[in-house]
């Protein structure tokens, strides 16, 4: 495999990412799935990078899941998006940053639609005015939060305590990167590195000391794919997709999976448990799974944040094997303590997937 071939493609997909003054919108599901990720993003931006990150509590879901399941019509979704832009305009910001890949895809789709069909944009202004009395200016710059972490990846590692190398052997850790479909498959030029060989997570992994694992089903769906999971009858497709990926990456012995989408880490993490219960099969070393992380979680680990502050204890696949390899200290006795120090109890261990270090 020739790296220069990928570099040739990457140079065509470099997008502008604003330097500062971001209007931040959250995902509607990430805080439930990976509760420390958005917290970590805000902490990194404000405290480590000293950036102006503004959030308005009045912002809402982008309606993306409803739109992609054909519950929410385009006009409704467009008007909700217009309202998000209006909140940004009212706050005096021009750079719109979305925490969710689905939302990023929605915002991209709307902006592309408006670019090609100005009359549709005019309708959005009209609908929003009629519904809320608000108006908006389109963002000067649209980025996903992963783009921001990518942009400042070198600053993060420069401030960091850890690198993605085995602390005993010095070998780079082998990381699988998985990109959410709506990041660049619809609009390749809006993603760093394009659609076929996205660079956004590769850049983080490589600059933080790790090595990217290329494997045959790299492009395959994580298993979410909206209808595969949201339509209950299709859930067999969902887990089959994830299984196909695990089987494909297993021979390369990855140390972790890095993702940039709300759904991907959820399914790549939880389905490992489900597959282990169904088939007795685990994909990590010695009965462990392959830890699945968001880019904020990984950035937080590089910066030396406490794993439990990052919410890594709510992962279905334990992250301790990865922490041990990097040499990140953690206190197992505090894993299931709440923020107030109260013991939240210990989850029941799966039958096959190694969950507790001592088990």
């Amino acid at each position, binding site marked *: *495999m020739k790296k220069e*071939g*990928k570099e040739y*493609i990457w140079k065509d997909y470099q997008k502008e990412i604003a330097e500062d003054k971001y209007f931040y919108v959250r995902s509607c599901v990430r805080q439930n799935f990976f509760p420390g990720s958005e917290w970590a993003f805000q902490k990194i931006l404000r405290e480590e990078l000293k950036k102006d990150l503004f959030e308005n509590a009045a912002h809402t879901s982008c309606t993306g899941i409803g739109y992609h399941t054909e519950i929410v019509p385009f006009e409704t979704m467009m008007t909700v998006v217009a309202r998000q832009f209006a909140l940004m305009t009212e706050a005096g910001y021009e750079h719109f940053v979305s925490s969710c890949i689905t939302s990023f895809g929605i915002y991209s789709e709307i902006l592309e639609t408006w670019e090609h069909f100005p009359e549709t944009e005019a309708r959005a202004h009209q609908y929003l005015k009629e519904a809320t009395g608000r108006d908006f200016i389109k963002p000067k710059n649209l980025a996903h939060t992963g783009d921001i972490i990518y942009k400042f990846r070198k600053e993060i590692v420069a401030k960091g305590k850890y690198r993605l190398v085995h602390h005993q052997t010095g070998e780079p850790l082998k990381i699988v990167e998985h990109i959410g479909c709506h990041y660049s498959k619809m609009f390749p030029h809006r993603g760093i590195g394009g659609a*076929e060989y996205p660079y956004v997570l590769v850049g983080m992994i490589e600059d933080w000391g790790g090595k990217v694992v290329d*494997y045959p*089903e790299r*492009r395959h769906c994580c298993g979410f794919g909206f209808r595969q999971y949201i339509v209950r009858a299709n859930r067999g497709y969902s887990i089959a997709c994830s299984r196909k990926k695990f089987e494909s990456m297993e021979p390369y012995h990855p140390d972790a999976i890095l993702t940039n989408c709300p759904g991907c880490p959820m399914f790549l993490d939880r389905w490992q448990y489900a597959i282990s219960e169904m088939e007795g099969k685990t994909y990590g070393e010695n009965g462990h799974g392959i830890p699945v992380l968001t880019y904020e979680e990984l950035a937080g680990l590089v910066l030396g944040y406490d794993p439990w502050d990052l919410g890594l204890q709510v992962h279905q696949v334990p992250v301790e094997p990865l922490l041990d390899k990097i040499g990140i200290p953690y206190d197992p006795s505090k894993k299931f303590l709440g923020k107030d120090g109260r013991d939240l109890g210990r989850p029941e261990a799966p039958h096959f997937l190694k969950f507790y270090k001592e088990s």
Partner: protein
Amino acid sequence: MRQVVIIGGGVAGLEAAGFLGKMGHQVVLLEKEKAVGGHVGKWDRLFPNRRQGSEVMDFIRKKMDEKVSIITEAGIKSIDTSPDGYAVVLTNGEAIRADAILLATGFELFDARKKEEYGYGIYDNVITSADLERIFREEGKITTADGQAPQKVAFVHCVGSRDEKAGNVYCSKVCCVTGVKQAIEVKEMMPAAKVYSFYMDIRMFDRHFEELYIEAQQQGITFIRGRLSEVYEDQGKVQCKVEDTLTGKPMKVTVDLLVLLVGFMPSPETKRLAGMLKINIGSDGFVLPIDGHISQNETGVPGIFLAGAVTGPKCIATTLSDARSAALQIDQYLKTK
């Protein structure tokens, strides 16, 4: 004596040069590369009868006489109108008088790297049809990147042609028959190898082409109707994901070598020259003659003529006929000038 400047030293330019010389005109042929011959000069054997490309080149070269002078590595700075016709100014400052100009700038092969999902330039064992011809011509045997004889070889048709995503909706005409010819050659070279061909449609438009397709099937080449969705290289093997659209089944085919049948692209130089000469470019990027049926060689600009693949994909036989036709048109034009 009238002087014709021919821009482009591929088979169209060379054939027209030979004919115009025989008709008594002085010819200056400008070629941007170090040597004339164009794409045919780099091809090993030609469809449908698999004769050596060099034989055709020899045939064309034999027609050249002292009236034809060839300037290689010729960059064109400008083309100016003059009282006599035109002055073609080269990048070295030399100005060449022209009573007529023949644009025979041909085509470029589609850059397969633009079909990112096929991994050309990234995966070691993904090559193009042009690479395979070079291997046939220079190496005489086919090997994978690690020097092994491939056991399984697959061809992908329509790479960069009939593809809106690639920006080219036209058919490049010659890739299907090239792919079938190359598949047979691979099979003959390595009879034990399994050879696949992934196609949208097999377009065997010319004489003896269909026979070649039948021969390929008789030799055991497997034709699968479906366009590849993606390619991946795993431990030296190339994995192809494709849907067999005749059976409606997705397939994963693992091969040792994947050959991409790249199509024609209008060359950027043609576009630049067309701008200088104020001649029209079609929506496909190739030059528009004034009439696609009855005036293929004329541009509507006095003294400016066209020959070969500058007006769209053509096979060699058609290109040579087109070049002769252009030579006759130019001769007629110069006689009445």
